[in-house]
């Protein structure tokens, strides 16, 4: 009978404290009844017989979970809202981190690109841990409150307010929107932050562009502002409309033109040639910069083609 006591104790350890005594007492009574029933049929039972019966009943943890099913950390009905909140907050934190790290990068003379990316990732990871823990804790607390009525049964919604059924691409993913927003913010910080820098800071900063290339970017910065506005509009609507597609198309046409124009405008880079002597020639770097700009221009151009097709289908 020692086996039975050990089995019941093992089940009790897996149960909430308030239910341990009652369930343990009842489980023990049920097992003893079963063993008595078997003994009546087959004679006295050996330890192996008892072990067989207990094994048939299942692992103590599984039995305990049948009596007291584990509660999920977050109620199932809250999961979509939880995921949405998490994604939204992490997206905003990513944007803020992009701004902060880019400002540090632009104003620093000894931070390389790899270090910039590392700082961006490390800073974002810090934010993610804090935000994830806070949001999860808030939803855990909400899930512990008794729910008045299952959400499925509520009647405070109207089928007429549902958006029109459309193709699957019409739904705008949060990931795409936040990637766009981060790109435009990065551009704006890189273009405009030097305005607030002193002459000394400016000398020691990593501004590698020629004056006319920099001026070109300044003139193009309203496009980045428009991109930000479009991103915020997308966050509000979350569904591509004709107006939104046309705006995106116009913006991407303008971006393609600006990037290609910059690539064709003449000398782009202003480098300390002596420093790179023997490593790179200036014309090689210029050619690499022009090629990079042409490749970058392909992205908005691809979106132009995509949006044209979508406009025809919508």
């Amino acid at each position, binding site marked *: 009978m020692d086996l039975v006591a050990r089995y019941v104790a093992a089940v009790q350890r897996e149960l909430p404290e308030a239910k341990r005594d009652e369930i343990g007492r009842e489980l023990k009574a049920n097992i003893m009844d079963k063993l008595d*029933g078997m003994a009546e049929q087959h004679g006295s039972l050996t330890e192996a017989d008892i072990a067989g019966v207990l094994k048939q*009943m299942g692992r103590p943890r599984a*039995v305990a979970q049948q009596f007291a099913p584990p509660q999920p950390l977050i109620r199932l009905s809250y999961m979509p809202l939880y995921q949405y909140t998490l994604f939204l907050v992490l997206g905003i934190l990513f944007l803020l981190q992009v701004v902060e790290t880019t400002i540090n990068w632009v104003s620093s003379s000894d931070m390389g690109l790899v270090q910039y990316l590392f700082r961006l990732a490390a800073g974002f990871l810090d934010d993610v841990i804090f935000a994830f823990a806070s949001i999860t804790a808030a939803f855990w607390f909400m899930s512990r409150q008794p729910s008045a009525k299952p959400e499925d049964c509520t009647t405070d919604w109207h089928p007429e307010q549902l958006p029109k059924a459309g193709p699957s691409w019409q739904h705008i993913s949060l990931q795409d929107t936040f990637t766009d927003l981060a790109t435009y913010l990065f551009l704006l910080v890189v273009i405009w932050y030097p305005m607030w820098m002193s002459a000394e800071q400016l000398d020691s900063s990593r501004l590698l562009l020629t004056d006319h290339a920099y001026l070109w970017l300044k003139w193009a910065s309203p496009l980045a502002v428009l991109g930000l506005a479009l991103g915020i509009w997308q966050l509000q609507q979350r569904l591509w409309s004709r107006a939104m597609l046309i705006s995106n198309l116009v913006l991407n046409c303008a971006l393609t033109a600006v990037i290609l124009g910059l690539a064709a405008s003449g000398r782009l880079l202003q480098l300390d040639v002596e420093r790179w002597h023997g490593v790179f020639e200036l014309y090689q770097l210029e050619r690499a910069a022009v090629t990079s700009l042409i490749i970058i221009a392909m992205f908005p151009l691809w979106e132009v083609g995509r949006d044209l097709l979508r406009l025809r289908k919508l």
Partner: protein
Amino acid sequence: MTAAQLDKMRLELRRGVLVLAVLASLKQPHYGYSLRRQLQDRGIDIDEGTLYPLIRRLADQELLNSEWRQGEGRERRYYQLSDLGTELLGQLSDEWQQLNGALSNILGGAAEETD
């Protein structure tokens, strides 16, 4: 269909019916093991891991009354239908009869179509 899929669907099919079988059996008082034996004798084999937690859940929902009694040198917890449980059993039985009739028609119709 694999054996695992079949087992899963059988479990789903039986789950709701077991509640009805347990409630109907507890018109008379029973302790866990005796209830299981009675259900087995009547053709419903239900493992302990399902039956005992189910009885407790029904008791928590106040559909069953329970009390500890001494008998044959051992204490046992006896369960019996409460007033609320009796009322629910009546409603569930009607629902079952209706569903069973409809399902028989559907299954009969399906069998004829197959022939």
